[in-house]
């Protein structure tokens, strides 16, 4: 697969504030990569560096194999969708979309069909002569996408493009953006702080924190094998136990935690765990199940149920173990064996435990 974008050792400081520590990312052509993170994590700074609006202190950026670190935005040939769309209020929808084509010195005879085609793709052909302020939020969003997609830039950068929309519209636009990504087969770099959005849309997610990459991988990687406690907590809910290593049998390790002994199956062949070494492990709530009379599991504890929250398809149980550690359990509401309350036995498999640092 050919590399569309190469970021190497890029860093940026504003005065004494380190906005971005040296970061390196490779983006293959056609990928949908999401930069995810809480505010202040450096994701927007990275995006602005890529677009050319901010010059990095150090490091380099290659677009299509060409060095672009110091190219002004107008000559990078990238597309950018802004947070509040940044549609030109004094131009009609069609004029907005034609703008990048005019900037590329295209003849008006060529421009018109292109504008019409992209308006068809975003399903707004009837609004070509309206002004941006006459459109709804969702329509403005689509125009912004169309304006960016019309000149088929090799890379499209999107800075929280759905932030201003309400929940329903956001879900719908997520699907449309993914669809557009497929239709145009471009490379998209998407910035958001919404983990669900990132999960739903991305090929890969780059989770950032304090100007550093916390973990880079597929949504499944980040959810199922988080490398740090931060990653585990950022995606969904998790039970985190602090433990010490007690014994190792090849790939299986026996740990000592306040809730009781925990068996882990996460070690690669040859990897060594030192006795007495401390670490944290994560168990997802949905991996913990209630054990009926004779049922057993690799890891078993007794908990006292404190609260039951039915959220529709799933039910969350908030419980405490005998040593008072809060435990969260998630199961399908339809699964049948909902406990009556009081004390009950729960358990999870050794393959469901993830070691984090």
């Amino acid at each position: 697969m050919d590399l569309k974008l190469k970021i190497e050792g890029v860093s940026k400081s504003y005065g004494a504030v380190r906005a971005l520590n040296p970061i390196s990312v490779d983006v293959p052509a056609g990928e949908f990569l999401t930069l995810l993170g809480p505010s202040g994590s450096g994701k927007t700074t990275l995006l602005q560096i890529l677009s050319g609006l901010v010059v990095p202190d150090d490091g380099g950026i290659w677009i299509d194999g060409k060095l672009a670190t110091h190219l002004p935005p107008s000559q990078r040939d990238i597309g950018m969708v802004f947070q509040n769309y940044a549609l030109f209020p004094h131009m009609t929808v069609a004029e907005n979309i034609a703008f990048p084509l005019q900037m590329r010195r295209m003849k008006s005879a060529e421009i018109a069909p292109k504008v019409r085609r992209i308006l068809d793709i975003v399903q707004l052909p009837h609004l070509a002569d309206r002004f941006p302020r006459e459109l709804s939020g969702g329509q403005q969003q689509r125009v912004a996408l169309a304006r960016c997609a019309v000149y088929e830039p090799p890379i499209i950068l999107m800075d929280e493009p759905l932030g201003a929309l309400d929940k329903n519209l956001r879900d719908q636009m997520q699907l449309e953006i993914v669809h557009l990504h497929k239709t145009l087969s471009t490379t998209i770099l998407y910035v958001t702080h919404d983990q669900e959005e990132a999960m739903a849309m991305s090929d890969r997610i780059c989770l950032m924190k304090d100007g550093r990459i916390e973990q880079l991988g597929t949504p499944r990687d980040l959810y199922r094998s988080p490398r740090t406690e931060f990653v585990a907590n950022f995606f969904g809910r998790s039970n985190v136990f602090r433990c010490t290593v007690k014994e190792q049998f090849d790939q299986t390790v026996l740990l000592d935690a306040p809730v009781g002994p925990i068996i882990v199956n996460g070690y690669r062949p040859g990897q060594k765990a030192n006795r007495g070494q401390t670490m944290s492990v994560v168990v997802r709530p949905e991996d913990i199940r209630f054990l009926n009379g004779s049922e057993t599991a690799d890891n078993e504890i007794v908990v006292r149920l404190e609260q039951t929250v039915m959220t529709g398809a799933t039910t969350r149980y908030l419980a405490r173990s005998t040593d008072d550690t809060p435990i969260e359990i998630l199961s399908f509401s339809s699964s049948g064996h909902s406990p009556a309350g009081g004390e009950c036995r729960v358990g999870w498999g050794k393959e469901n435990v993830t070691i984090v640092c």
Partner: protein
Amino acid sequence: MTAADLQWQAGGTAVRSWRQRSFVSLLPLIPAWAFLLLFFAVPLLFVTGASIFDESGSLSLQNFIRLVETPVYWRILLNTLDIAFWSACITVVAGYPLARMLASGERSGSSLLMIAIMIPLWTSFLVRALAWMLVLSRYGVINSTMLSMGLFDTPARLVNNYPAVLLAMVHGMLPLAVLTMYSVMQNIDPALTRAASTLGARSGHAFWRVYFPLSLPGVASAWLVVFVSALGTFIVPVLLGSPREMMIAGSIVEQINNNFNWGFAGALTCMLLGATLIVYLVFERTLGSSVLSGGAASSASTGTGKGRVQQWMRPFGTSILAAVGTVTVFFEKMLEPVLGRRRAGNGILLSFSAWLLVAFLVLPVVFVIPVSFSEDRFFSWPPVGFTTEWFEAYFTSTVWMKATLNSVLFAFVSAITSMLLGIPAALVLARRSVPMRALLMMLVLMPIVLPNVIVSVGLFYVFAYVNLVGSVWAIIIGHTVLNLPYVIITVMAVLKNYDVRLDHASWTLGASKLRTFRLITMPILRAGIVAAFLFSFVRSFDDLSIVLFLGAGQLSTLPLQLWSTALVGIDSTLAAVSTVIFCAVCVVVVVATRIGSKK
């Protein structure tokens, strides 16, 4: 009676009591409204009325016939329009880079830039005109410097001509024009220019096709503000022009002060009024009404309320701007190898021209300071020796001191009066639905948009009728007419950004309406209200036209004393007084900016 009927009746009473209450809530509007009606609308009618009576008091068109038949007055009208037009054009073009730099704000020193604009804005128009006399006169800064450098053999005639008038006019109007454009530019989303550049527009295109069209409402407002202010100016043409640069306002002053011909002054005032209204009408037709209400409204509604003409002009405008953009980009590409890629569009030119303009704004007044310590009896350059004689003359002269005290007193009382009348009215206008709102707002805006001379002449007629001319009250009322609209507009603007839910929260927490106003609303609005007060104070302190007409020679203020002294000769005491005023303004502006930046 059925249950439904009863219910219906109950509903009816509820509606009625709601109506009564809403009438009560409109009461705070009445004083301001009545004041403007009595002291603005009525005087305006008087002016038009008085012009259609002859000396014997019978109805006649004699004054207008004289106006139409005397070619001199046609010349004066044309002169006025010509000077006002070119002043406005030059001011707007010159001020644009300054406003843009101020609005971009990211450059360090933009607060310094703000101070550099605020100080000339608040330094009396008269003081600045005097400064130009020093710079341009026969023994002035330019001539002396050129002679000593051997570039001139004999002093050049730089003053009492058309360029001098235009120069001083532009200098006088520049700060106001810059701030008008700035208020619109401030609201242009910086993301738009960035978006344009990511879409492939070089900075030339991004500016001419995106930024510039969006800033046009500000440019149009600024042009209009300067044009109208220039229409009513008499200080600059009288001090720096020759009779050939006589403007309408100047001849009105002459008719009243020298010839005592009120009727004819009224006819001239009508001519000025007519010219002003025609300009507004033309503007409204071509650019839409948003221009009238200035930056605040137009920025939010860029592109709305377009006149037919504008709609028709749009394609032309677009292609012209596209062409200009292309030309700019061409130069940008040429400059690239010289300046380096990223710097080409980065506005070295912009900041250079902006700081050049700042020098133009500030320097003339700065030259006055050394002259005020010069031993020479009249304005001359370079200053000779060192003496504080002129300051002593100012501080020991009862005439000057009385004038200064009067100025402070009038400014203070009229500012307070404007606040007392204006704030309640602004609260109602900003928050309630008011019947005939458009009409009320027009009454509020008119005193701002009409040249002060018109208001002054009008008030003169009214007060002459009730024998109040020459009284302290006449001047305070006159200044209040000028200030009240500013207070209302400023406070309304501040209120627009005020979150009413804070009041609601306070009510639900148990505070009465009055306590809420005192403890919540007032502290949050304080900065805006202080600004409105300061602005009123300065405007009234600077005023010349009201005092000139309504003081009737019995009351003097600092500007009037400066003016009458300057007409006799450019005495060095004037330099001392100017220095005092300039320093006072500097202190106020710097302190105000400090307070502002702390918040």
